[in-house]
């Protein structure tokens, strides 16, 4: 820039820009209190700025100074212990298998269900978890819902065979825990299944 730079106007612009930026920083730092569930507007907004604030300001030609600015908080990583669900638990019952994208209990599956139903009726205090699983094709979210429908289809069939509902529960693992790690129809057929776990 030449010597005719309008310093006064620059100062005004810088001041106003900083004001605007500072105003937005204020709006960003809406407090969210984990303990205050039920209160407030529900905006999961940013929390108080951390120690490592990043500041930004506009500069114009000529020597520069520091200015207040908006703030960025950095991400943190945390860990939590979990219940192990990643290992297949052995079952005394066969799996009930399904066709691709289907949750209808087939003829072979009904025979397995009859065996399971007989056991449950003989052991009225037994608790049975029915896991729904899918093959690897398709998106994980859809498969999770499909796995649930498979588990519930088996559960409902057991109830229709006279098993009390109270002893049955279901969970879907979608395509997250394949029995066979292969990538062909043979593996997929084994992985589209309901798996029984006595608790």
């Amino acid at each position, binding site marked *: 820039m030449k010597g005719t730079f309008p310093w006064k106007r620059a100062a005004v612009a810088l001041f106003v820009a900083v004001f605007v930026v500072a105003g937005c920083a204020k709006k960003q730092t809406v407090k969210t209190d984990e303990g205050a569930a039920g209160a407030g507007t529900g905006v999961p907004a940013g929390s108080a700025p951390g120690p490592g604030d990043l500041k930004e300001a506009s500069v114009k030609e000529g020597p520069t100074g520091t200015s207040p600015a908006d703030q960025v908080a950095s991400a943190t990583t945390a860990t*939590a212990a979990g219940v*192990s669900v990643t290992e297949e638990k052995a079952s005394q019952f066969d799996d009930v298998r399904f066709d691709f994208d289907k949750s209808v209990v087939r003829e072979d599956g009904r025979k397995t269900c009859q065996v399971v139903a007989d056991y449950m009726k003989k052991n009225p205090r037994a608790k049975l978890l029915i896991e729904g699983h899918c093959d690897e094709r398709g998106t994980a979210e859809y498969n999770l819902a499909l796995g649930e429908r498979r588990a519930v289809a088996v559960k409902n069939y057991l109830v229709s065979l006279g098993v009390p509902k109270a002893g049955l529960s279901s969970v879907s693992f979608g395509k997250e825990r394949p029995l066979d790690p292969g990538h062909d129809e043979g593996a997929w057929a084994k992985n589209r299944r309901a798996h029984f776990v006595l608790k």
Partner: protein
Amino acid sequence: MRRPIGAAAGAVLLALFLFPSAAYPLLYIDINAPGGKRMPLAVADFAIGPGDPSLSRGIPKILSDDLALTDLFDLVPPTAHMETVTAAHFSGKPLSFPGWKMIGAEAVVIGKAEAQGDRVSIEMRLYDATQGTLLVGKRYSGTPRQIRSIAHRFANEIVYTFTGVRGVFGTEIAFSARSGKSKGKDLYIVGMDGQDLRKVTDNRSFNLFPRWSPDGQWLAYTSFRTGSPSIYLRNFTTGAEKDVVRFGGTKAPGGFSPDGVWLYAGVSEGGNSDIYRVRVVGGTAEKVVEGWGLDLSPSPSPDGRKIAFVSDRGGSPQVYVKSIGTSGETRISQGSGYATSPSWSPTGDRIAYTARVRGHFAVFTVAPDGSDTREVVSAPDGDCEDPSFAPDGRSLVYTYRKRGYSSLKIISSDGRRQRTLVSGLDDAGSPAWSPGR
């Protein structure tokens, strides 16, 4: 992130008003003209300021790498540069613009860095080499660890100056992948430039479907860590988590309303999945889509009035759009196959989804009214699925899978250019692009 962007736009408008000659985008790049003219730009080596023997070395490369990702710039290689930038260029000494013009640069970026204790101060300026005018200048201060994000911020300023659309540098992608130790899946986050890969969860369970809150401060996801699926909200700053959907069996978060008040989720009860929205604070739930079939994967529109979602009410999963609070629902995916995982563009004009064609999965986009379906990417021997739009709507991240191999890729929305973001992690999937920074 709407407010900061709005405020920034306000500041720019104000600057335009006060400095019509200095801030007017003289060198406008039309981002909607594929194959259009690219801006020849030079990123000079930084001036070394007090206390900075090495801090500034890497910044020009970060800026250049960012700008190269856009395909909007031709970067003049540093070996061609003739002028050495010094501190004097930040206190009145003009650059030798004819020299920069001579090596082909129509724009020049200069910078300097100073360190004081554990703080760094970095100033960067973008000049129009033809007019010899300052287009944008910023001074940043932060910790040495924040140098990358400072460079990304200025790269965004450069893109904004030339295109009028904010860049997406410094944004991140969350996804799930098998973790080495167990057969479980953990959540990871990686920068959109492929840097700074890190793990978010570590609980030897299945952690799935990460979804960002509009302010980027929270991640909603499904975890099996208690043995059955729950949706958790994790705060990045505090690491605090809360369980937000306290009913139903299988559940998966879809997305937040733009104001961050609601989390949309698919929740199954008795094998039938419906779509709910749940207040992030308080947990009050409302049913948004229900029916005989599976209804899941809600993706809210950027104006918050509609959702795209998946339903198999017609016999196979397909993508539908619905206005919140009304009964009408329009199917927008075509064919009789299998269409899932909609992602509404932050610009509002397109919805991306996964569909099965020719025995494989491919990524498509479609207008929200179901017209103008376009295939973005497919692979003859693999699957392309689970798209998620960048905040500027100009590119998508998706999962590529071929037998046991998987990677995350980023592709321009027109399907012309793509690059691998993450590879080498087992069963990587469900990528979600963060909001703008």
